[in-house]
């Protein structure tokens, strides 16, 4: 048990901060994912074939390629890409992006592909009459979306979004390969210096279980709130 002590003798505080890091990366990635979903969901639902193609390309490629490969692409290619863009503007110094940004961008793009599918499914399952009724009542496009479609869509999307959240949370463990100190990386460091991998990796598993359990409880509450009217 002294292995988990706080302070200099144990790994308790390190693992605590690592857990906070995992939560921070997951939330950032989820928000980045929502941002991508906001762009690509309309493309997938668009009337135009070319826009459909772009949307489908994004979700198919990201969902068909391993997460680890995407992370390697960002890890090795991220600063190169930024430096290339900077060189166009006449900036030739070496730029290093920190692991947090690389990691949450990579996981965010992955989680965005799943979110896009969830939103597309939710919008498509809203009754067509709702769109028509809104139009007939003379509500403008903005109001149609925010006041009528979005609230109904959220109710349908939340159960599936909770799955996306679980996937995102578990995917953040893969960022440890880039050296960002989250639960997995910290366990790796602790296991290496104490030669007790079984304990630390099992403890990491417990931390992940705890995170998924608590977030499930919170999401269930949210679900009840949004399906009040039903």
């Amino acid at each position, binding site marked *: 048990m002294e292995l988990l002590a706080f302070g200099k003798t144990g790994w308790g505080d390190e693992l605590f901060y690592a857990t906070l890091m995992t939560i921070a990366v997951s939330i950032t990635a989820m928000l980045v994912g929502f941002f991508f979903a906001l762009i690509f969901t309309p493309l997938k639902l668009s009337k135009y074939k070319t826009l459909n193609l772009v949307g489908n390309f994004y979700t198919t*490629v990201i*969902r068909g*390629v391993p997460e680890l*490969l995407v992370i390697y692409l960002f890890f090795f*290619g991220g600063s190169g890409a930024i430096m290339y863009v900077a060189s166009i503007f006449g900036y030739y110094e070496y730029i290093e992006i920190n692991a947090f940004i690389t990691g949450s961008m990579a996981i965010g793009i992955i989680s965005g592909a799943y979110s896009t599918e969830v939103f597309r499914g939710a919008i498509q399952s809203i009754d067509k009459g709702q769109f028509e009724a809104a139009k007939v009542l003379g509500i403008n496009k903005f109001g149609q979306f925010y006041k009528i479609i979005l609230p109904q869509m959220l109710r349908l999307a939340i159960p599936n979004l909770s799955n996306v959240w679980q996937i995102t949370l578990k995917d953040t463990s*893969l960022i440890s390969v880039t050296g960002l100190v989250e639960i997995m990386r910290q366990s790796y460091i602790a296991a290496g210096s104490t030669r007790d991998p*079984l304990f630390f*990796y099992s403890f990491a598993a417990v931390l992940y279980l705890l995170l998924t359990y608590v977030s499930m409880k919170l999401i269930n509450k949210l679900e009840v709130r949004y399906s009040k009217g039903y």
Partner: protein
Amino acid sequence: MDLDLMITSFPKLLGATVVTLKLLSASLFFGLFIGLFFAILRLNKNIFINKFAYGYSYIFRGTPLLVQIFIIYFGLGQIEYLRTTFLWVVLKEPYWCAIIAFTLNTGAYTSEILRSAFQTIKPGIIEAGKSLGISNKIIFYKIQIPIAIRQSLPAYGNEIILMMKGTSLASTVTLMDLTGVAKYIISTTFKPIEVFIVAGGIYLFMTFIIHNVIKYLEKKYSFQQ
């Protein structure tokens, strides 16, 4: 864009794909049995057996696959007793550790898929079998299992694709699978985009094949024929 690199790395990556496919097929094969076993336990009325099966699937679905591989590969070797048994022959090989981790992981997801498939079978079908005087065992093997397999095909297809992506984690325990070789080429040439296109293309091609095979099977075994 470095076309030469893409052409020279293609055969290397294709060779590594064989490792990925071996890992995938072995873990799916064993995982199916484990999944079926735990799905049947889940349907058991005994609360302890039921809870045990639920706990298994909850733990393996609630933790990242990476943690599971690390526990099995780095963690289990730490137990002195295991080193003296025959299990050590298996556990010292990263290849078998990866397969054990993947099998247990996919087994957990498969058990959930099969359980829900068994539960959606209409009781009328089982009652019909009973009233025809068919024994419980035959009802299970000849009626429930075929219907459950048909029901679970779409979800199981997704699970196969997820598992294919999961095998990329084998590269973290020193195995040179498709992702492992891709990472090696990237880190020696510093050309991530080219390698990503080739390796990603191979993965997408496999996804495409799996997707279409499942679609074909769904059509073949659908009820309306």
